[in-house]
């Protein structure tokens, strides 16, 4: 198998086992949402109330509506990787030195 194909395959494999990342259920430090902050502090800072919901991500927290946790996570990874490949491919082709 050609080397580059192995790398693509490796990416696919990582996507399939990505739900392992769900085993650690706690939020990363400093990434708490408003409800978690209320529990931690007893209040939500005023500026945070103002700006925290400035953008509504379609698949917030890597969840896909109706898909369930693990399938939703895998689909999110695959969709995310596809978008990243498309964008970097476009940027790469735009920038790459002509040979």
């Amino acid at each position: 198998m050609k080397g580059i194909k192995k790398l693509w395959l490796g990416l696919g494999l990582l996507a399939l086992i990505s739900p392992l990342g769900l085993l650690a259920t706690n939020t990363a430090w400093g990434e708490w949402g408003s409800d978690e902050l209320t529990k931690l502090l007893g209040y939500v800072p005023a500026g945070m109330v103002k700006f925290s919901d400035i953008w509504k991500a379609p698949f917030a927290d890597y969840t896909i509506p109706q898909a369930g946790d693990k399938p939703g996570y895998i689909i999110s990874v695959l969709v995310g990787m596809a978008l990243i490949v498309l964008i970097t491919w476009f940027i790469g082709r735009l920038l790459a030195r002509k040979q």
Partner: protein
Amino acid sequence: MHIPDGYLSPSTCAVMYAASAPVWYWSAKKVSKTLTARMVPLLSIFAAFSFVVMMFNVPVPGGTTAHAVGGTLMAIILGPWAAAIGVSVALLVQAIFFGDGGILSYGANCFNMAIVLPFVGYFIYWLTSRGAAAGSGRHWFAIALGSYAGINAAALCAAIELGIQPLLFHTANGTPLYCPYNLSQTIPAMMIAHLTIAGIAEVIATEGVLAFTRHSIHLGIKTNIKDEGIIA
């Protein structure tokens, strides 16, 4: 390490965009001189790898989680300039589609994870691997040291950006407006998470992928950095 919106004041966010913008410009110029068309798939693969490796949350002491970033890996293979672009794209997709990291704080997150991380990681790797044969013990040690230093430098930057918020932005009676934790809380919290678990995860991810590419494949692509041989 993905700072959500609301944790940094709008002015901090503006400063961080202003800090990242020239590096993006410089990286694009540099990449346009070094990247060949045949290397474009590698840019995509390692940007996607950075995204997927960030999905593997690991528990850290103190009841929170952290993850590897894969930025130094990308810097070692394609150069830190390409890594800055690749990780920035991964962070953009995370922010827009998955709400992982804010839109206002995107400049700050890129500064930490897409700029400081690969550049510090690459510099430490370059410094400690000079003169070492590719594949030698010292070379592997340099890779480990670089990736460990990179992610910890990024975590420290994030901790400082968060920790100065209550100092600079509060109401008349001192109630914080944005991130409520000061430097004496943010620095230990972020550094304990990254000096221990996340740092080790980053080293394992970097060494693992480099071992995989080195032993199992022939990419047939010449990289632009001196230390070829990583990808034979």
